[in-house]
């Protein structure tokens, strides 16, 4: 223990001794103090690996683009007793034998015949609609049709790319202005990681990419950024209050501990509705669009939570440690945590502070000392 203020009961070591329950309690009580920096290298390596796999898959397998991107038509026909073979016969009759045909059964027992074919002309598509209506013996108006021209996909891809580039530029400027350019770099790399990972999952599992997927990816970027900014804002606050020369990873580690519960709780609160969307909306009620949204969001949120911790934070630490004030000297980050917490001059440490009523107007010289766990709480 290099922490001269630490005691044997210090929460620094406590969680590792007492197992999961104590860890959780420490989290709930805001006394957690994990050493994230130990995992920085491993975390970054995993992130790089995953990104590389995604890139390889993108180049070799490509993406399973929906008709909105490559042109074509999709029909959704409510059916009672029409088989895939019947539909195949109809499609072969109009020279579309290579159509993709699926029969989906919803939880309430209704069946939907989903036919996808390479028809980009509205007139031709209407003809097929008529044939399918005859087959299923339903009025034409009961059939959902989506026909997309061959060049439309390029158009929306171009739009999305443009939006993405502008978004990255705007965010870089914004973070550089409100926080620091080094943090902008961290945020950008972390967003790029989330995007790559999400696209990679879609490429590897051959999940169809639709405009809904596109929206979800953009949302993911938003969440990831939000997460990263919350962490960085705190890191900035912490570093500005740290007077002594302190390795940046120590500051970052303390920050990550401080913001961990916020990240976890936000992620849980966000993921609950999304899981509900997937399970109840998509699986039980068969709303395909909800499934498209939900899947990408789930992947992206998980990735976003990971990258805030193990991509954005290490990169910023590494960049900041090139400044003399924050250079890394070799100490264990957790052991040095007190430097971030309580080395402000003239500040009474620990228990004394716990009882002392502090007015909001109190000089904000430093982050108040992290209280040490009492023996009674064990």
């Amino acid at each position, binding site marked *: 223990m290099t922490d001269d203020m630490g005691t044997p009961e210090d929460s620094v070591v406590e969680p590792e001794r007492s197992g999961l329950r104590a860890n959780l309690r420490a989290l709930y009580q805001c006394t957690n103090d994990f050493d994230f920096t130990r995992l920085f290298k491993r975390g970054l390596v995993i992130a790089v690996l995953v990104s590389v796999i995604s890139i390889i898959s993108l180049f070799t397998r490509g993406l399973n683009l929906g008709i909105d991107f490559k042109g074509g038509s999709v029909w959704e026909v409510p059916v009672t007793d029409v088989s895939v073979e019947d539909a195949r016969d109809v499609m072969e009759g109009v020279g579309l034998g290579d159509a993709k045909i699926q029969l989906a059964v919803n939880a309430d027992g209704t069946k939907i015949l989903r036919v996808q074919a390479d028809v980009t002309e509205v007139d031709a598509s209407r*003809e097929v609609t008529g044939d399918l209506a005859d087959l299923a013996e339903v009025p034409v*108006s009961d059939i959902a049709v989506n026909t997309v*021209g061959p060049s439309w996909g390029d158009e929306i891809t171009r739009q999305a790319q443009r939006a993405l580039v502008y978004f990255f530029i705007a965010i870089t400027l914004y973070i550089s202005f409100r926080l620091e350019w080094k943090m902008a770099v961290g945020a950008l790399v972390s967003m790029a990681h989330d995007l790559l990972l999400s696209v990679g999952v879609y490429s590897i599992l051959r999940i169809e990419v639709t405009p809904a997927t596109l*929206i979800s990816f953009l949302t993911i970027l938003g969440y990831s950024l939000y997460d990263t900014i919350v962490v960085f804002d705190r890191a900035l606050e912490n570093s500005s209050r740290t007077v002594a020369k302190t390795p940046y990873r120590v500051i970052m580690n303390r920050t990550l501990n401080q913001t961990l519960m916020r990240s976890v709780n*936000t992620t849980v609160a966000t993921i609950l509705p999304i899981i509900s969307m997937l399970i*109840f909306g998509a699986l039980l009620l068969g709303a395909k669009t909800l499934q498209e949204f939900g899947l990408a969001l789930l992947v992206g949120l998980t990735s976003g939570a990971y990258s805030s911790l193990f991509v954005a934070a290490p990169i910023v630490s590494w960049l900041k440690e090139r400044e003399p004030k924050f250079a890394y000297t070799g100490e264990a980050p957790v052991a040095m945590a007190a430097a971030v917490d309580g080395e402000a001059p003239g500040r009474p440490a620990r228990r004394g502070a716990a009882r002392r009523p*502090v007015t909001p107007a109190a000089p904000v010289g430093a982050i*108040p000392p992290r209280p040490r766990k009492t023996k009674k709480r064990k």
Partner: protein
Amino acid sequence: MRRKGVLPLVFFVVFTLGTLAWTFIVGNSPVLGLDLQGGVSVVLQPDGPVENEDTLNQAVDIIRNRIDALGVAEPDITRQGETVLVQLPGVENQDRVLEVIGQTAVLSFRPVLQTLPPVGQEVPTTTGAPTTTAGDGATTTTGPGGATTTTAPSTSTTEELGLGAPGALTPGENAAGLQATTTTVAPTTTGAPGTTVPGSTATTVPADGAGAGECAGVEDQARLRQNGVPRGLNDEGVTPSDEVEPCNTVVLAERDEDGNVVTRFVLGPTALTGDALSGASAGLDQSGVTWLVRPTFRGGEDGIDKFNAAAAQCFAAAPTCPTTQLAIVLDDDVISAPQIQTDSFERDQIQISGDFDESSAKDLALVLEYGALPVELVPQQTQTVSATLGEDSLRAGLVAGIIGLGLTVIFMVGYYRLLGVVAVVSLTLEFALVWVLISYLGESRGLALTLAGVTGLIVSIGISVDSNVVFYEHLKEDVRNGRTFRSTVDRSFGSSFTTIIKADLASLIGAFLLYFLSVGPVRGFALLLGISTVVDLIATWFFIRPAVLILARSPRYRNNYAALGMPNVEAGS
């Protein structure tokens, strides 16, 4: 001191509930997008570069007029960049709408040089070969007063038509239509191909013809075969659409409802375009039985004069219009090829008659009135959602949203206890406010709530909860560090709120960019994300802060750390 902070809270709650009540009283409710209630959506883009903004705006206006004329409720026709988005929620007769929107090509009038049967039905050139069945080919354009004068020797006209235009027109069922409208000036049409009628050349016809004047010498004569039919026809025996130019001689077809070729026409260069028309209406003739279409031309040089120049040539059966028929061409298809019955027309006294029923007459009138789009728009995406599927999606979205909300509520209350309750109340109020805004924008600006928007709302639960979590975790940390709950609320809030603003601003930047740089569903999503982010900021300031302050001052709860879900330092030491 006690009252500090209560005022904004009361104001916010009263404002939210008040606007909510107002929304219900006025009867505003969110306008459902077509993916939630069924309908038709068409994305159109110009074919080739657009020269100026005005032409696109004009095109949007024309489409809007067409849709309005169809009587669609709450159509949403917007221009986003160079893209035109047509959304028609709740439309049931989808085919008809697609047809009317689909007819976006430039309308033109071309003289008929020859009439040909469909490929595979060629017959020897005999008189009156009964190769056609549809009526439009036999339509007749009648002159002034045509509607009132129905005493024409119609049978002779019909026969003459049969004689005069080899293989073109069928007597019989069409005769009725002709009878009703043929005028006294009619039976002068004896023109076989290439025949001029000397007596009819009274009106001065420019030697080079009306429209052909601009095209003189342009056409490569090598394109034509000996019999005057252009080369390079496709399988259907018509000129491929990419070779249809205003100055070429082309073969175009008239089609029946299923798109099959009924008659083919060899057409001369475009005589005039739809620009010359100012309007058109459909109506019954005097007898009240037959449907007519009455186009109205603009006055002067660019309107009726052009038409009359072409009409005079056709009436005279000049070489540029030997059949006396002037075809109305839309989207490379012949809509109708009426026979010209007089050489000069008043601009508002023209009738097109034929085998129309009410629907086809009105459709032709619509096409004539709004057909002349200044730019050709190509449908890029056409989506039809059935009403039942839309309802299912809406139900799925609602069920998923409610369950998701329930889970979040359980989690927040379970973890943060009383503070969690504050979060849930705040979430409810925020939702009410977003509902008010969506309803208001739906009624006033036509903003439709799509499935993408519903997803945006479900997702915004997370954003809203996050503001609470950032604040509460800060509170807990400060309390853990020895401050009392009461003393730290303001300090924690100040620090958390700057963080929330920084993060929310990033979200807003994203939403703003997405809104202006994208089209369709992404746009709706971005708007809702933006709205809920702003509402969240407002609620955080005006509700969460004062509500937590009140809790902190409450003698009952301010020290009840367990009920607040906080680490209890006092008890622990």
